């Protein structure tokens, strides 16, 4: 288009005609807020996601939708009911994830325990725990330029590894529990190393091989649960033996009240995040991971073993995902593991890593957010469709992955250092 070939110079220079001598803090901060930098893009992605979620809530609610049929006759009906629906829905999510206001009232009235107040938080943390591990598993691989789609399979193997040690050995808890956790990490690491080794030796793309390995892992799980070694002795359903008491992850807040299920795996997860941060930023191994991730050619020229880095990074990532599996199988208590226990935690790890921008701190924050969404949605149903948490996650990640979209919708400015991009160099 050459329509504005002859337009006079743009107005922007005039607008900035009388700049103050030095931009004050508030001004700098104000500019930061309307810039498409990575922090603000994340914030706006969350806001936009909740906004779109609100629209979808309204559209999907039959009663509210019906008020729109006579919108022009009595608009206040539609607006009021929409408002109430959105307010109640998000309030319900909040109550399920952070603090239940009814419980608070009952606590103030003396009819509820302090522990009851903590239950939503406990559920949020419980749901976030596996996501911390799988998010780290995906995020660490990102940093080496690898796209680890295989966290789900690694998690499944970690789950089985921890479980096998958890019910088959007879040991005191101080030994049994750590041993079971380590077994989960090792099983995940072994399975995670496969795509890494295949890439290093044959050049097979880790995305393809890890997707396929996910299927292998799932059907292995279905088969394994049915075997005499794993299958429950008391139940006829497709469920494994439960882990021994000595290998069960102790709850963190159990002494405050019943139903506070968050367990020691959360602490392990936070420790894993700190360790991963240290590994990436302080160790020679991390130096190599980052170098290879940014530029494999230059790394090879500098004498680094790119293939070995891929293999060891994938093994490490697999170990982290395996810990997620251990957190699940050692945390379900007396129930045992089914084909359903792993849910989609491995795949959710991809979105967690994206939202956390492959940085350990960001991953923990993203995992907590998604954990809160899941806990909130579980408790808010059936008034709020339980799928709302998945939906919000998907929209958030969509915006994170397409920052230009957020920038365009909100007319944000281009930041100094250019637009934020994701480190998904694996493709």
């Amino acid at each position, binding site marked *: 288009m050459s329509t504005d070939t002859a337009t006079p110079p743009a107005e922007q220079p005039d607008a900035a005609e009388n700049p103050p001598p030095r931009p004050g803090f508030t001004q700098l901060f104000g500019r930061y807020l309307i810039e498409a930098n990575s922090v603000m893009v994340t914030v706006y992605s969350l806001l936009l996601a909740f906004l779109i979620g609100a629209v979808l809530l309204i559209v999907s609610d039959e009663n509210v939708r019906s008020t729109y049929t006579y919108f022009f006759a009595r608009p206040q009906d539609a607006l009021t009911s929409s408002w109430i629906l959105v307010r109640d829905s998000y309030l319900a999510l909040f109550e399920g994830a952070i603090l239940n206001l009814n419980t608070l009232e009952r606590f103030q009235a003396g009819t509820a325990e302090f522990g009851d107040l903590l239950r939503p938080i406990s559920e949020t943390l419980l749901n976030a725990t596996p996501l911390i591990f799988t998010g780290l598993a995906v995020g660490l691989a990102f940093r080496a330029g690898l796209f680890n789609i295989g966290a789900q399979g690694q998690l499944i193997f970690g789950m089985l590894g921890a479980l096998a040690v958890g019910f088959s050995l007879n040991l005191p808890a101080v030994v049994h529990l750590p041993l079971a956790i380590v077994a989960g990490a090792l099983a995940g690491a072994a399975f995670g190393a496969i795509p890494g080794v295949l890439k290093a030796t044959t050049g097979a793309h880790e995305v393809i091989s890890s997707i396929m390995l996910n299927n292998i892992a799932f059907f292995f799980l279905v088969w394994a649960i049915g075997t005499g070694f794993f299958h429950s002795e008391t139940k006829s359903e497709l469920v494994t033996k439960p882990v021994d008491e000595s290998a069960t992850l102790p709850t963190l807040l159990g002494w405050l009240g019943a139903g506070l299920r968050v367990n020691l795996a959360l602490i392990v997860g936070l420790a894993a995040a700190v360790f991963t941060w240290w590994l990436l930023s302080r*160790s020679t*191994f991390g130096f190599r991971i980052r170098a290879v991730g940014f530029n494999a050619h230059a790394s090879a020229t500098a*004498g680094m073993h790119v293939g070995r880095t891929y293999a060891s990074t994938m093994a490490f990532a697999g170990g982290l995902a395996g810990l997620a599996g251990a957190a699940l199988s050692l945390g379900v208590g007396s129930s045992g593991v089914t084909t359903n226990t792993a849910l989609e935690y491995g795949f959710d790890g991809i979105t967690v890593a994206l939202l956390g921008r492959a940085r350990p701190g960001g991953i923990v924050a993203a995992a907590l957010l998604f954990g809160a969404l899941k806990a909130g949605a579980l408790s808010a149903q059936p008034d709020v469709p339980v799928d709302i948490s998945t939906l919000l996650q998907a929209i958030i990640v969509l915006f994170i992955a397409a920052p230009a979209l957020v920038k365009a919708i909100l007319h944000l400015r281009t930041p100094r250092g250019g637009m934020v991009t994701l480190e998904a160099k694996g493709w």
Partner: protein
Amino acid sequence: MRLELKGLTKKFGSFTADDDIDLVVEPGQIHAVLGENGAGKSTLMNMLYGILKPTSGEILIDGEPVSFSGPGDAIAAGIGMVHQHFKLVGPFSVADNVHLGREHTLAGGVLAAKAARQAVLDVSERYGLRLDPDAICEDLPVGVQQRVEIVKALSGPKTELLILDEPTAVLTPAEIAELLDIMRSLAESGTSILFISHKLKEVQAVADTITVIRRGKVVAELEPTASEAEMAAAMVGRAVTLQVDKTPAEPAEPRLEVKDLTVVNAAGVKALDGLNLNVHSGEIVGLAGVEGNGQTELARCILGLLKPDAGHIAIDGADVHHHDPARRIADGLGYIPEDRGRDGLVTEFSVAENLVLNQYRDEPFAKNGVVDAAAVRKRAVDSIAEFDIRTQSPDEPAASLSGGNQQKVIIAREFSRPRRLLVAAQPTRGVDVGATEFIHNRLVTERDTGTGILLISSELDEIYALADRIAVIYNGRIVGEVAPDTPREVIGRLMVGADLGGDADAETDPRTRPDDDANGGDR
């Protein structure tokens, strides 16, 4: 067309890339814009071609002010551009490439192939640029590909001004001469040319007038009669010695012995075909040749990134076939890769991290698998001072440095650890005059300490300036080893394989080759 720039300025935040540039290109004139990398040439050109919007100032065409919101506007206004990196679709024919984006179509969107061919032939004929419109671009030599780019630029609706951005960087000496002829004849036929370059000889040879820019400002308007030293001084801002002072080499024991090296690439073609080459301690061996004749493969084999299909490489007298790159680097092999951005630096890493990229596991930079950030930083501070690396701090990402300073980072890295053999591939490519001078002097100093240096360069000037012995590579073989005072023409002919079949072949490759290839070397 008469192009005039009045006070053209481009700011990126607080950084001024171009500051108040005035410049006039008269019709039929070849106007050279001379400047170091990072002087603001590219920004200027991008404003002219509509890719960037000027912060202030005016562009006038034939006295009328214009404003471009994209290359389309520039093309419509009669400006054509030949980029440094060709923008051709390899598998397409010449005619298809020339009309890419403005295809002639018949009713229903059918490509009018015949009309496109004819249009190419017309332009070729009018300007005397021979081209086969049906040839497939990726099969053509680089010089011809560039001709396609020129014809493409000239095929605009009314192209009257051609911008050539560093057009000679990828050409052989013969192709350069040909290009300069083409430019002259284009100018004679009335086309104005804006010639962007940092190569003094070419500018001198072809330009009608020369504008020198430095740090975004016009610092001199020179006549083509100006001497190279004058031009260089204007570019750099101080007197520059273009001649490298060096004493005659004192070659001693062999540091690098390459014997019968053969590499077959993925396409089944021999990239290296029984290559033999020696480098001794205390000498610089210049490897001259047109790019793509096996230089890259040779360098990669010496480092160990590429395993030869046959032949031996010995460093310091020891066969290194089973040594990985890390071992060879640790044993004193220095390596300056030809593609700095791809192989030399992790541009997202800080300057400090890049300075220890091949030593990050060694003491004192790491202990027990933990990087010692203080030691890394200390090395960076030292290197930045010693090698005059211009960076705001050791923690800046390498990407923020200019090309010359990036290259200094690599030089500093390789020269800050014990070394016995140095492979320097295109060490001054895309590096400005000042940094080139610095790098050349360091290479000679390095030679004098006893290091053997293999200098791989496609620029004959550089080979002449530094080499104690010149080996010419063609089609994966050394086709001649000559003294540094050998005339340009002789080497130029060797580089294109013109003297093959005579003494050169027999001299460097006396073996009966087929048997050798069949039995392989140490593989």
